């Protein structure tokens, strides 16, 4: 049996979330005709970090991709349900997924800097191409601010014009975080952001996440229990059923989920009996 992961030694988050920034209700997603997740409902507290964990294929990434409606950009993929962002459904009639994605940013599993752009161009790509900012001076300022928030500015300030591909993997991932922050989102989705990185780069990004939570609502998908325990205030546990349809098993303050899970399947997963 595995050791229970150690928890961050901080005050436990309350069981009920007082200030809900994002509220997913009965989210379903399909790839073609195959149902991938069924009726997932989950609340995310403002300026908190929520970890969504579960074994491979449990639909956690699919669920995350429904939260900014990027799931439906793939051919044949479809999603349905309600996701309330500050009380308004991003799936409601007349809502534009393109505009929604400016309010809900995303960082991907593998660093994906735009290959033909410099470091600076990568960070300004969002505000520049969405028409948020036009003035070169303001663009540069916002880029520096975003790079600073992503704890990368010091390392790249002398080579902002260099191709993004010249950075290391960990730096590229922080560049992608800066790129997402430059659009000034309210929510930041992170899809296993450290799974392609070495331990040192992982540590840097985990430290960074703590700081980000003071400005943003952070939702991170991870298959790494220790990571969920280390960084998150709230934890949700997902599992696929016999037909590989993902469902939410339980969620709550990270402290409680890891010490007193209410569902035996969560207990089994945390103690390493499967997954």
């Amino acid at each position, binding site marked *: 049996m595995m050791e229970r992961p150690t928890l961050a030694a901080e005050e436990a988050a309350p069981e009920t979330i007082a200030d809900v920034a994002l509220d997913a209700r009965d989210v379903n997603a399909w790839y073609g005709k195959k149902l991938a997740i069924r009726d997932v409902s989950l609340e995310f507290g403002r300026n908190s970090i929520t970890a969504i964990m579960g074994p491979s294929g449990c639909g956690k990434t699919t669920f995350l991709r429904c939260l900014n409606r*990027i799931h439906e950009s793939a051919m044949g993929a479809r999603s349905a349900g309600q996701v309330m962002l500050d009380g308004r459904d991003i799936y409601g009639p007349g809502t534009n997924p393109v*505009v929604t*994605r400016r309010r809900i940013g995303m960082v991907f599993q593998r660093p994906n800097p*735009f*290959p033909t752009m410099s470091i600076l161009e990568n960070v300004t*790509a969002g505000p520049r*191409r969405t028409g948020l900012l036009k003035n070169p001076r303001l663009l540069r300022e916002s880029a520096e601010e975003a790079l600073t928030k992503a704890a990368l500015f010091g390392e790249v300030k002398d080579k902002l014009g260099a191709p993004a*591909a010249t950075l290391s993997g960990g730096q590229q991932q922080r560049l992608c975080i800066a790129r*997402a922050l430059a*659009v000034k989102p309210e929510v930041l989705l992170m899809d296993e952001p450290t799974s392609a990185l070495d331990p040192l780069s992982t540590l840097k990004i985990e430290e960074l996440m703590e700081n980000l939570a003071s400005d943003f609502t952070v939702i991170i998908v991870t298959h790494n229990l220790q990571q969920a325990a280390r960084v998150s205030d709230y934890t949700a546990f997902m599992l696929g059923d016999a037909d590989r349809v993902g469902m939410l098993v339980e969620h709550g303050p990270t402290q409680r989920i890891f010490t007193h899970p209410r569902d035996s399947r969560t207990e089994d997963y945390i103690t390493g009996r499967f997954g």
Partner: protein
Amino acid sequence: MILTGFCSALAAGLLIMLLGYVIVQGWGAINPAFLTQLPRPVGVSGGGVANGIVGSAIVIGLATLMAIPIGGLTGVYLAVYGRGLGAEFIRFLAEVLGGVPSIAVGLFAYTILVQPFSHFSGFSAAFAFTVLMLPLMVRTSEEAIRAVPISIREGALALGLPDYGSIIHVVLPAARPLIITGLLLAIARITGETAPLLFTAFGSQFWEVNPGNPMAVLALQIFTYAISPYDDWHRQAWGGALILIFAVLVLNVAARLAVSRRTKKL
């Protein structure tokens, strides 16, 4: 081993002989006058193929201008949205079109752009060339765009760029070197095409820069000169052939350079 080696040597030898023969025969014909003067009437020695070179540039340029948006956007469609029967049908069509003899394409251009107007034109030749370029353009641009990881496009979508914005600002720049390679190869393919020109551009002895009129095109001039009974014209045909081979060579080398520069970058 011996047999394959022998055949390889034979193939290489034939190519070298061909190149050498064209150079030996054509070199003597090439001089400043050949490159800058108009053809002279039969019996008058000297003169050049300047109008043919310019005509080639105009016809190929027009064809390229038409093929880039059509071929490129079809490639985008197939690579990004191309699923299901419709897309398969377009891919199949492009493949079939790639195998259609150029003389048949020329005949088609003649039927829809020459006959109705009772007038040969450089434009009808450019149209035929566009049709000949499209299959290669469509296939290479689809492959080039497919080679850009989907995560790159999703990165742009996640920033709140619209669908077309993600393609224009992020995917196409990343795919550009390979698209340019395909374009250069497509241009190289049509540069030496002669058959469709016979009944589209038709040829001209004069300076003609208006593609609405019959035009001189280098490949066509080579054909006309080569089948003529005059030694002076034969010589000029070789000179023209040398220029064509050189142009195609330059295009092929440029295409290779575009690819190698890309691979070095990644």
